[in-house]
Structures are given as C-alpha cells and as structure tokens.
C-alpha cells in the first residue's frame, strides 16, 4: 500500500514537473534572465549601439537620482497612479453595485457596454480623448463655453494635461474593476443583508459594515494590481502629448524616461538603472499586498 502510494506520488510528481518545467524554463529565459541582465547592465556605461562597456559602479543610479527629469517623471507617474487607481476603484465599485442591484432594465447589456473600454486599444482610446480635449475643436471646451466658462488649454500645460491622462486611465480601467467587484458582490451572503434589514440598518450602514468588509480582499487585489499597471503608464501620456499640435511630451512618465534613455540617448546603463528603480517600486507594492493579505 505504502509502495503504491509512493508510486502514485512519483507519477504525480513526474506529471507536475513535466507540465511545470517547460513553463519555468520559458519564464527563466524571457523574464528572469533579462531582469538579471538589466540589473548587471545598470552598473556599466553601455551604449545600446556599441559593443564596448565599462564598469562604473553605482554611477548610473546616482546620475538618475540627481537628474531633475527622472524625479519629475517619477512624481508624474505617482500622481497618475494615485488618482487613476483611487478613482477607478471607486467608480468600478459604484458601477458593480448598480449592476448587482439591477436597478435598470438590460443590465447585462450595460455591463457589456461598460466593459468595452477595457478591450479597446490604448492608442485609439487616447487619440479619441485627445480630440475631446482639443483646445480649438474639442467637445469639452465647447461645453465649458456653453455654460459661460473660458476654454482651457488641456494638452499644452504640464499641470493640466495630467487630468485628461488620469481620465483616460479611469475610463479604461473602471470596466475591468467593475467586473471583478461584481463577482465579489455576488459572493456576499444574502443572509447578512436580510439580518441587517431586520435590524433596521440604512443603506450606507449596510455598505460600510457588510459590503466593504466582505469584499476587502478583492478591493485589495484590484488596488494593488491597478497600481502596478499604472506605475508603468506610458501610452496615454505619450500619445496625449505627442504631435506637432501638442507641447512635445511635456508630461514625462517613468517608462518614457526609460524609453528615452535607451532608444533616444542609447544609454542602456541609465535605462537599466531606472528600470531597476521601477522594479523595486513594484516589488514593494507586491510585498505590501502580501502583507495586507496575511492580515
């Protein structure tokens, strides 16, 4: 019996390994080794287009940490991440509750409509929003004019263009968040609400004392995953501020900084150092999520 059990275990072990090893090898080749190489290159002065390289220790790190553009890019990225994540989570939860309560007819249809932005590619989405925010012909300024307000130059000002970029992010993300929250809300036991009704709880009390605590793990998951996604923000900021009618990538994000160091200035050492900083931020967030999950 014991031998049989061992045989069974061996068979299981072989099966699990035969399935896992190819994936682990692939993961090592396309993820783990490049990360290690990036870490290694970050200590060298290395041009993307020249074979020679020289060891310079932490010089790339000290350069980027002193570089005003890097700090600006980091601050811009944190701004976008904070507002996009917070607002897309809040709106996502709000929409999920409406869908869950089926307050209007054809909720399945509206659910699908709200999910459309998630599947639309980021470039056309951003171009569409860019047209809406255009100073001369955009609908947003038209509406402002109709209600007696002056047009705003949304795109050409670093402190203003961040808001259209946040809006694009929320618009893209909230449909996904809604779906996840919807699943979470479905799993909340009805009995809890029935008991609350008997006790005379108000809607806001039910939300605060039943719904939110029950969906806490999902909220945490969405928040951290969204943050990891937004910390890598690039496309919407790049497209929104590119082109001859725009102000020329005035709103630089961390990924754009890495792209520019690598592809424009060919400095792989600095691009790698900046990538490692990004990696550390993502690591900290993941650790934070695991820590909170344990609690």
């Amino acid at each position, binding site marked *: 019996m014991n031998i049989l059990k061992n045989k069974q275990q061996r068979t299981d072990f072989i099966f699990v390994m035969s399935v896992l090893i190819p994936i682990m090898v692939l993961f090592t080749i396309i993820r783990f080794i490049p990360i290690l190489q990036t870490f290694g290159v970050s200590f060298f002065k290395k041009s993307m287009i020249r074979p020679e390289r020289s060891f310079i220790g932490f010089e790339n790190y000290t350069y980027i940490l002193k570089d005003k553009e890097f700090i600006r890019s980091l601050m811009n990225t944190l701004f976008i991440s904070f507002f996009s994540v917070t607002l897309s989570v809040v709106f996502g939860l709000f929409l999920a509750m409406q869908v869950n309560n089926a307050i209007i007819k054809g909720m399945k249809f509206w659910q699908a409509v709200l999910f459309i932005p998630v599947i639309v590619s980021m470039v056309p989405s951003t171009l569409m929003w860019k047209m809406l925010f255009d100073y001369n012909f955009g609908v947003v300024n038209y509406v402002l004019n109709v209600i007696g307000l002056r047009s705003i130059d949304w795109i050409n000002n670093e402190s203003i263009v961040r808001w259209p970029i946040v809006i694009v992010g929320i618009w893209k993300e909230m449909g996904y968040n809604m779906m996840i929250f919807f699943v979470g809300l479905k799993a909340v036991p009805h009995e809890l609400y029935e008991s609350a009704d008997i006790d005379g709880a108000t809607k806001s009390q039910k939300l605060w004392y039943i719904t939110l605590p029950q969906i806490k793990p999902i909220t945490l998951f969405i928040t951290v995953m969204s943050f990891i996604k937004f910390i890598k923000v690039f496309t919407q900021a790049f497209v929104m501020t590119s082109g*001859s*009618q*725009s102000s020329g990538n005035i709103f630089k994000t961390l990924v754009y900084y890495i792209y520019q160091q690598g592809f424009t200035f060919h400095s792989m050492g600095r691009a790698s150092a900046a990538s490692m900083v990004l990696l550390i931020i993502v690591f900290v967030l993941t650790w934070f999520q695991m820590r909170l999950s344990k609690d």
Partner: protein
Amino acid sequence: MRKKLLFLLLIVAIMVTPLFAGGDSEKAGSKEVKLTLWNSSQTMVEWYDEVVTPAFKEMYPEVTDVEVLYLPIQDFVKKLAVALPSGDVPDIMEIEDSWATPYLTAGYFDPNTPELNRILDQMRPELKNTVTYKGKTYGVPVAPFHELFFYNLDMMAEAGITEIPDTMDEVIQAAVKMTKRDATGKIERSGFSMRLGGNPSGTSQKFWVLGLLPNGVDIWEESKTQPGKYHAGFDNEGGYNALKMYLEMLYKYEVDDFASMKDTEAFAKERTAINMREPSAAVSIERQGPNVNWVAAPMPVGNVRRATFLITLNLYVPKDSPKANKDLARKYIELATSEKMQDNNAINRAGFHPYTSVDPASFVQDRLKPGFAMPDDMHIITVPVHNAYDMAQVKLGEALPNILKKAELVNDPEGIKREVAYLASLVNDAYAEFDEYAE
C-alpha cells in the same frame, strides 16, 4: 504502431517544411534579385516606387523589385537602434543626417565607393559635411531640404501689407497686423505660427534656424583653445537675443500662443498668416487648403545675418546588408542621387536640388521659387557628424517650451540670461557624455 509512425512522420514534416519554404529565389538557382529599402519619409515612398524603381528595373532587369518599407519616425528610430546592432538590416537605409550620426560613427555603414564619392563631389560642398567622419564619407544625400517662410497673400492684402517682409523685425510687424482675436481675446488666427512643442528635435531645429542662426550663433561651437572639442555656442548675446525674440513674439507682440493651431495644418486651414517650414509642406498645403493664396520667401535677415539650414535624408548601405546585393544597392543609390533623378525630386517633392551646377529654384513651382532663390547674403548651415548633436537637440527642445511658458521673463533680462545659461548647460551636458567631443 503504424498510427504512431504516421503521427511521428507528420510531426517531422510540420517541423521541416518551413526550412524549405523560406529559401530565396537566388539560392534556388535563379538570378532574380529583390532589394529592400527602409525609410521614414512617407512622401519619398511614392517617389521611389513610381520614379526611381521603374527606371532601375529597366537598367537592371534581374531586379524584380525594390521593396520600400516605410515606418513612422518614432518606430523608425526604435528599429534603427535594434536592427543595426543585431545585423538584421535591409540593402539600403534612408535616414535623416542627425539620426544617422550615432550609427555612422559606430561603423554600421559602408564607406562610400569612388563612384558614390564622384556623385557627392558634384553636390553642394555644405552637404558633404553631413556624411563626413574622420576624413571618410558615408552615404549620399537623396532629399535635402532647407527652411523658408510661407505667407498668406490674402491676409497680407487684408492687413495692407504690400511687400514680403525681408527682415525679422518686418516679419513681426506684419504678424502683429495679421493676428486676429475673438471677443474673449482668444487668438483665432495667429500672425506667425511658432514652433512651441511637438517632437523636441523639431522644436530645437526651429529655434536654431529662427532664433540662433540669424543672431549669429549656433547650438555648438568649436573650442578656441582645444580644436576638435565643442561646447554650447549660444551662452552669449546672440543666445540672449534669440530667446528674448521668442518671448517677445509670445508676450509683447502676442502673434501666437501655446493653444492656437500650429504649423502646416494651421496654414492650410487659414488659422495662421505666416508659417516657417521646409518646401515639401507645399504639397500638404495644396491638399488641405487648395484655395489658400500663398507664396514662399527665403528666411529673413535677423539681427546679425540671414541664414537657413540644409538638412538631408541620406542613403546608406548598412555594413551587415546582404553581400550579394551590395553592388546593386550602390547602383540604386547612384541612380536615386543622379542629377536627372534629383531634377524629378525637385519637381515632384519640392526638394532642394543638391547639385552645384543647378539653380535650386529652377525646377520648383512658381509660388515656391522666391523661397528657393538664395540671396547672396544667405548662410547655409548643415548638421555636423557629432555624436552629441542629437542628444543636445532633444534636451534643448524639451526644455525650451517650459521656459517659453514663463511670461514674466519678457521683462526680466537677468531671467532670460539665466535661462540661456541653463539651456547651454544642457547642451554642454550632452557634449560631456561623449568624451570625444566635450571640451
């Protein structure tokens, strides 16, 4: 057992088939050749496909096609950075001079053959500057372009301006008269379309030709004490005057602002009266605004001199391109850069004819001719083969719009000096990145 064997054979067949499917026609015994060319200028694709390639195929019947792969500039820049070091390259590459520099100095292109140099020798001497590195030449200019002004004649007439301005002061005065605002004070039509953003390289290119060169200074200058070393050339009175002029155009004369429509699109839609651009913009103006009544004119005289740049798209043979096709690739470049083909380029694309023996104005349409007439006092400046140049341009172009947003600077001479010194420090930082050049 039979089933297993059949299954194994099927697997082997699936794996082996692609190895045979990909063989090129030359290896199969045929002499047919297909050349590939990468470019980033959409208007040039038509010219290669419809003018150069048919003539080339007639001369070399073994060439079945010259495939031109067009990539928008951002993608093209990325592709260059990946393709050239990895050796995955086409037979011919068309690259703008300053973008090619890092690759040229790193040895990714073949030096010119005597035949290509013979063509180069017949071209304007300034152009040689863009392809010469350490005494050797790499590539041949195929599409040079210079900078000129486009004027809307109807708007000029409406403002009572009868003559094309010849100095920058006259340009600003004319622009003031042609600027139109709505009831709220918002600019409806700018008097002069300033380049205040977009691709940073372009932003600094325009500042270079409109601000720095007419004030007698350049982005870089050679060290007086260490020949062969360079530093920013505008941390001086010329640079101060250039930045001051930009600020005054925005905040004193108010001929443009950040929000109004810009560039060729604005000119074609009659949202600006004067635009500074390369001549090929005429094609877009005619497409987008066929009824616009315009004329071109040469760059006006600035505080110190009259100047324009000559930027070129060059054709290069990559070092790692297929060896069997190299001769044909060079023949293609010889044909595309021949005087006859350049005549055609000037007619169809409003290109700047590079041959010394030809008057650049002779082939272009009448409305463009005045912009091609090179007055005797015109200085023609080209981009040097410096590794730091592109980085310097990008850094300058990124910083400039933020400085120009500071309206308070217009009445602050010390502030302007500070900003000029800051811009110059960015250029010096870029040169410092390359020990070869930094002073």
